[in-house]
């Protein structure tokens, strides 16, 4: 039987705003057994930067990688290897925007042994995240497991 994929809460706080500003709350889905907590600065990586030939681009502080996947970019590595490479490069977690790459979710469904969280986002949640990236709005991201109540609340 297929294990239910745990959902992720993605809390985004813009670094330029005062710390008391309410974080933007978005959602995603954890990949395989990678559910867990993570925090770091949001950092975009081009899909081609996670290939065997890519060089080692080290970041100073803790960061969370976000990659917008594009079906038009030939896959230089399987997604699982891309995720591992991003984590090996020091990412605290990896977020894949799969809005434009419908096969991605299937490719990553049954996976194990990911040392840190990998989350898939799409549609509005992805658009909001990538919107921040596009405007170069530096942001801190906290990823947590979303607690799904067992019995829906009846008034």
């Amino acid at each position: 039987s297929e294990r239910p994929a745990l959902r992720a809460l993605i809390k985004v706080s813009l670094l330029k705003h005062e710390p008391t500003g309410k974080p933007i709350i978005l959602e995603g889905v954890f990949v395989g057994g990678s559910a867990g907590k993570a925090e770091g600065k949001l950092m975009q990586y081009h899909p081609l930067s996670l290939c065997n030939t890519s060089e080692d681009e080290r970041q100073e502080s803790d960061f969370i990688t976000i990659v917008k996947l594009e079906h038009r970019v030939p896959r230089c590595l399987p997604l699982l290897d891309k995720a591992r490479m991003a984590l090996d490069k020091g990412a605290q977690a990896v977020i894949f925007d799969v809005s434009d790459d419908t096969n991605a979710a299937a490719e990553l469904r049954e996976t194990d042994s990911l040392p840190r969280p990998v989350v898939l986002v799409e549609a509005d949640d992805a658009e909001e995240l990538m919107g921040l990236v596009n405007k170069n709005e530096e942001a801190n991201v906290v990823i947590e497991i979303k607690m799904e109540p067992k019995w829906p609340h009846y008034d």
Partner: protein
Amino acid sequence: RQHKISGVSSGCQQGGCLTCSDYNGCLSCRPRLFMHLERIGMKQIGVCMTSCPPGFYGTRSPERNTCTKCRSECDSCFNRHFCTRCRAGFYLHLGKCQENCPEGHVRSDAQRECV
């Protein structure tokens, strides 16, 4: 002397792209151009150019031409192991950037070379 990156303008409108997207910039380049992944703050976009920016060298292959970073002590290089100009404080000799020159050579600060 920091030159403008020759042969490029950022984003998706620049001439070198073959395919591109708003978020990732160039996804592939027109034939014979080099794909460079440029970091601008938190963004990283693909940029297509005829020569890689300072501190990077170009590698051509039938499938794709890419820019790769030189060694840290090089301002410019021919490939990963062969520098063509050194960073300040290093001196070039036969493709190597070193802090000291081999016997029989002296350091030239103007050219950053062992002469």
